[in-house]
């Protein structure tokens, strides 16, 4: 039996929109193990982002249990969730979400600023992560002085800096051209090979093809769940 990292059991997420209730997720059950590389696809509004936000503890399920790394996220105190976000997950957003007027290095250091884990020197850790995403020579640049691909790589370095177990990337290539996207996917593959679990939401079949498991969502439910590239070594 493989090491279970994420366990969803009949997870529902409802939104009340002026009188009517939107079922963004209905009874989603799903298991993701450590070291997997999962791509989530599906039409707009099918609940992909909603699931990512729940796994990343940015939001809580309306019903159902969501256990990540042994922690039931549905019933935790805000501070526990903050700590979880700090060292368990790394987010990569479509819009990069870097702090403006703040250097790449400082952006990458941000999670360390809120970290209670004793670690080494914050500067060294952040620099190592920038090195890993190939931006060692750009660390003192502001976001405005970086290209979209470079900004997204800064965001990935930031996601990596606290050595998370899982990277959650919601349409990370959505704002990038195809060449830059490919570079980013190479980086993901490399990270996955180093043991980090990756979950990526995408509308791009090419991105999904790089992963090893494809989930397709429709109307808040998983409609297909296929393993691909099974031959590729972990």
């Amino acid at each position, binding site marked *: 039996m493989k090491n279970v990292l994420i366990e969803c059991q009949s997870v529902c997420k409802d939104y009340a929109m002026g009188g009517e209730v939107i079922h963004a997720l209905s009874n989603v059950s799903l298991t993701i193990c450590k070291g997997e590389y999962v791509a989530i696809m599906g039409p707009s509004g099918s609940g992909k982002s909603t699931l990512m936000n729940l796994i990343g503890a*940015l939001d809580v399920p309306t019903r159902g249990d969501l256990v990540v790394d042994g922690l039931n996220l549905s019933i935790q105190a*805000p*501070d526990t969730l903050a700590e979880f976000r700090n060292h368990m997950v790394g987010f990569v957003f479509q819009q990069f979400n870097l702090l403006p007027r703040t250097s790449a290095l400082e952006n990458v250091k941000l999670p360390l600023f809120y970290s209670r884990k004793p670690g080494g020197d914050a500067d060294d850790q952040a620099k190592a992560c920038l090195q890993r995403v190939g931006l060692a020579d750009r660390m003192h640049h502001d976001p405005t002085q970086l290209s979209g691909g470079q900004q997204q790589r800064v965001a990935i370095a930031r996601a990596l800096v606290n050595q998370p177990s899982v990277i959650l990337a919601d349409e990370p290539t959505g704002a990038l051209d195809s060449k830059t996207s490919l570079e980013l996917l190479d980086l993901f593959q490399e990270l996955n090979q180093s043991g980090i679990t990756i979950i990526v939401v995408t509308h791009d079949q090419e991105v999904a093809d790089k992963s090893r498991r494809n989930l397709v969502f429709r109307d808040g439910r998983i409609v297909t769940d296929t393993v691909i590239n099974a031959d590729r070594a972990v």
Partner: protein
Amino acid sequence: MGLWKTINIALIALKVNALRSFLTMLGIIIGIASVIVMVSVSSGSKQEIERAIDQLGSNMLSIRPGASVSGGRHSAAGSATPLTEKDITKLKHRFDFLEGVSGSLSTTAPVIYGNSNWTTSIRGVHTDYIDVRQWVIDEGRNFSERETRSGGKVALLGQDLIEKLFGGETPLGARIRIKNVPFTVIGTLQAKGESSFGRSQDDVIFIPISTARMRVSGRNDRSVPDMVGNIYLTVSLDSNIQIAQQELTEFMRELRKIAPGAQDDFSVRNFSEFIRARNETSSTLGLLLAATAAIALLVGGIGIMNIMLVSVTERTREIGLRLAVGARRNDILMQFLVEAVTLCLIGSFFGVAIGVSTGELIRQTSEIPVLLNVPIIFVAIASATFVGIFFGFYPAQKASQMNPIDALRYE
């Protein structure tokens, strides 16, 4: 999370909107500056009053014959039974808390030395008078108890009188005459300067009270052989002067056999109280000014709250991001609180600078007493910190209670 780093984040955030930050600060600057000026002015006048009280001795009481009427004036003293040596003896016997007791029998008469003469205030006193009224012997010595009791022909001279009669020479041992009675000068008094009423206190000569009674005052009334004029006394510093005043009043009523309910035919007065009452209006004004300054600071605080609310709204996405990478609610709360307090503190430094220089300007260019001291500056900085925390709390609280996902999605 390091406080320095949080302060640094706050400084960066404030710098991004430098002009806006400065305009917001202006309210605090004006508030703090006016607090400093108003407090300096009112503590300046308070110090002036305390100095006047100190000069009189804050533990001194006086007993005078004649009822006190409103405004502190007295009815004609002659109409009331005079105070006598017997009263003094009984007071000393009755109250342990008395440190010094002295009568004071005053007249005005010319003092003659050689060819010069000068009309001055001649005060017949007991030995304790020097201490009770806080005089200091400059040269020579005080009267002995014996001289006081047995009509010694000795005198202590005030500096004005020495100047007038001796022109700077030492008067010790000199023979002077008052109403044809020869006196030997045995001591001189250190100058006291003007009283709080603006008269020189040094135009004076002290002689033993018995001598004054028999030879000088012309008031050696046969029916009251031992009259002492007014009585001045000091109570020990560890006793409560208000209670002493009450007890003395009751005892004097007993001595003078005043029926219950009848009006006193004497008055026991507390000098510091008298001066305080005289200056009550000025301290009320001071309070009013301080209140105005506090309102200015309050308005500044409201400005802080307003701008912090704007800032929180503007930076909703930033808050969302910080929450997403692991900031706790408290971290966010602290970040915005520190920002508000930093804004106030920077403002208060400018405010202190402006307030202190304005106070100094007032002191140098006008008669208004101004007391600038270090505690005021601490009070100002502490109140700025308080304003920052008080008015920054609601916006910071609002920021910290945001839901991560809603904050991240905020447009």
